[in-house]
């Protein structure tokens, strides 16, 4: 509650919070199928209709309602983004803590593996994984999750190493606390702040990567809706039906903007050092 109040008293936090809140609502409605029309029903007589009262955002080449597809697409994109970031957060936290706590050989092995993953451009690594496993929602989740795991590992390992050297950890050891207790109670709890900021920003990247994969035809598969796929389909109809490009384009952009604004606000709130120079 205190965190929510802090977010809403922060300029960009307020805007970001409202954007993300609205998107979450639309995503839930889209996933529950509570859309103006069925997103895959083809109203063939109404193909390529410009926005009007029956179809708020027009219809596509197959006569499907763009607004309904957009809602379903936001649901789809958010599902992939949330699960992939959850995957990366969990994997990155476990690996980062293991590397920091076990040190030496473990640290070396884990961090070299992360270096290998980081040496790949994100989209190429995701592309490779998706091609291996075949396109689909779960494949996108795992691919994007693996791509962002090294970033979370680094975010956790650095501060965990410095926390490990602090007196309160020595004191806990002296009192006979087990390693698992120290790692979960003393290290992990102190990492919540940087992790929260990273999760918010990673959601923005994840939305971007999901849209990119779908744009290249390797994410969500038709006839299901996805923002990237809708945008890709709009390319050949740009001049005759610009609404097919404008609405999904704006939807992707504003969702990323929302998470970026929220991430910035959280960084200001949770990391007092950053307050001096909000960007």
């Amino acid at each position, binding site marked *: 509650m205190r965190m929510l109040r802090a977010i809403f008293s922060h300029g*960009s936090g307020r805007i970001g919070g409202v954007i993300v809140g609205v998107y979450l609502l639309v995503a839930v409605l889209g996933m529950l199928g509570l859309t103006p029309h069925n997103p895959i029903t083809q109203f063939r007589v109404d193909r390529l209709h410009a926005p009007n009262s029956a179809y708020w955002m027009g219809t596509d080449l197959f006569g499907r309602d763009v607004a309904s597809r957009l809602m379903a697409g936001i649901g789809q994109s958010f599902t992939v983004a949330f699960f992939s970031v959850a995957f990366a957060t969990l994997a990155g936290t476990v690996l980062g803590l293991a590397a920091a706590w076990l040190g030496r050989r473990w640290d070396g092995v884990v961090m*070299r*593996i992360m*270096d*290998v*993953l980081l*040496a*790949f*451009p*994100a*989209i*190429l690594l995701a*592309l*490779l*994984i998706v*091609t*291996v496993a*075949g396109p689909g929602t779960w494949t996108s989740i795992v691919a994007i999750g693996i791509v962002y795991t090294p970033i979370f590992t680094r975010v956790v390992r650095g501060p965990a190493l410095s926390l490990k050297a602090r007196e309160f950890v020595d004191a806990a050891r002296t009192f006979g606390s087990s390693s698992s207790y120290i790692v979960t109670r003393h290290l992990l709890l102190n990492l919540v702040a940087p992790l929260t900021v990273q999760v918010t920003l990673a959601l*923005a990247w994840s939305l*971007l990567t999901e*849209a*990119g994969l779908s*744009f*290249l035809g390797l994410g969500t598969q038709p006839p299901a809706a996805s923002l*990237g796929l809708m*945008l890709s389909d*709009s*390319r050949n109809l*740009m*001049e005759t039906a*610009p609404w097919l*490009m404008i609405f999904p*384009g704006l939807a*992707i*952009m*504003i969702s*990323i*903007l929302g998470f*970026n*604004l929220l991430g*910035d606000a959280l960084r200001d709130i949770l990391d007092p050092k950053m307050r*001096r*120079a*909000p*960007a």
Partner: protein
Amino acid sequence: MNYLMRRLATFPLVLLGVSILVFVAIRMVPGDSITAMLGTEAGLLTPAQRDSLAAYFGIDQPWFIQYWRWIGGILHGNLGISVTYGRPVLDVIIERFPLTLELAVLSMIIALAVGMPAGIFAATHNEKLSDLGVRIVAMIGQSTPSFVLGLLIIYTLSAGFGVLPAMGEFAPLWQDPLRNLSQMILPAITLGFAFAASVTRISRSSMLDVLSDDYVRTARSKGASARSVIWRHALPNALIPVVTLSGIEFGYLLGGAVIVEQIYALPGLGRMVLDAIQQRDYALVQGSVLFIAFNFMIVNLLVDLAYVALDPRIRLGES
């Protein structure tokens, strides 16, 4: 020097990891490269023809022998033969890389030329309306995916001015510089926009940090002009985070901008890797990914070395 040696020593290890990962991953893609290369015509091959093609491309051996031969070849400068192009992988990469490099350089020039002055301007007009304006534009820029911007640019040009970006056959810079620039400018702006937004934000925040430092206050109290304080005293130190960001971004761009190359139909490295993955062109995927990873590591190392050049107080590798 020690740091440089230690960093260089990790290169072979990381490249070995990349090589194993890409070698295993591409072989897990369903289907085989000969069928992918010949399509339905692959069915017309006799078993003997198929075997001799597989032998020619070196994919008839068990995986560990293929890997061993590949690594051995790399050490002799031979990355294998591309199934798709029927030519040495290195030749194909060398043919595609200049475009990717040019696109990365142009995007960086745009990003720095726009982002740094905008960031410095915003920092020196902190909390004023103009600062807010710059921050809003930068935030929007950072949140606009390249494929959204690319399509918007193409749409605006075609709907508003009745022109389309210069596509068609790509003209290398050294053959037809004018045509080349007309083909490259829009992709570079598309990539450079978000990059410029990031540079603006990082320049602004690091400039604000530096401007509140004691030595800047001292320079001001000694009567140094505002211009001299910004350019001579503050800017060199504010540059360090900008160098980091630009370097990392540049390193990624050298890996090819798959989506932008796809939108503008540019024959760059990113699109080549995408096609190679879909064609199961093992040698080309392996060679180009290794090449991209190597470039990325070199750029990162150069970024680290640039810190020292910009701030001699930094001693790399010391805790």
